[in-house]
């Protein structure tokens, strides 16, 4: 059932690079949050895969903490996007070039 570790690494690299691609090319702040989520989940794939590789549950336990941290990050991110929309009437990240408020 366990593929070669290289397969998991390549899958994780693909998901991570999709996240980087989203961060570099998008302008919508909500898509930024989604991209960061993809990058964090790429790390989770590696943690779970190598947890099995070493026969130790430390990686799986740690991936749960990563998910909780991602939830905290999204909670703050949504709040920031809300304030961004209130102040600029838009969630385009290139619009918010001032910090007047």
């Amino acid at each position: 059932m366990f593929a070669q570790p290289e397969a998991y690494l390549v899958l994780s690299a693909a998901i991570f690079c999709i996240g980087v691609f989203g961060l570099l090319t998008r302008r919508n702040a909500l898509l930024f949050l989604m991209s960061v989520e993809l990058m964090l989940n790429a790390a989770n794939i590696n943690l779970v895969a190598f947890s099995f590789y070493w026969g130790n549950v430390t990686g799986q336990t740690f991936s749960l903490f990563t998910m909780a941290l991602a939830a905290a990050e999204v909670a703050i991110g949504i709040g920031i996007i809300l304030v961004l929309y209130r102040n600029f009437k838009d969630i385009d990240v290139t619009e918010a070039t001032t910090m007047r408020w």
Partner: protein
Amino acid sequence: MSDDSNGGSRPRLKLGGHLVPGLAAVGLFAVLALVFLQSSFGEAQGFEQGASITASIGYAMFNIDPDAVSGAVVSGEGFVVAFVLIAIALDVAIDGAVFLAKRDDEEGGIGAVLTDGGREIRETLRGGDD
């Protein structure tokens, strides 16, 4: 007869400098995949037969000694300190989200949270001379 020579409505590929960030991400994937596929790994050890992974995660998360419980357990480190730290981080995050989401113009009004014990409302009602 067609206006394709004038542009028409056909979608066209726009080449230019704006493609560089996207190509950088694709290039990063190419480099990572190249490195990963050239590396060599041994055979995976895998988990112990018949061991419950969910139970093992629970034991690892709360520093429970695997010898003290019955059944096969996959070993792991203790994570109870990290658990408490993450709990605090989530608490701070939800407070921060509420703080950010609250409207500024509600802050002095009755609708907002009374952080001064209601002193401001009392002063407004009594005229402030007390």
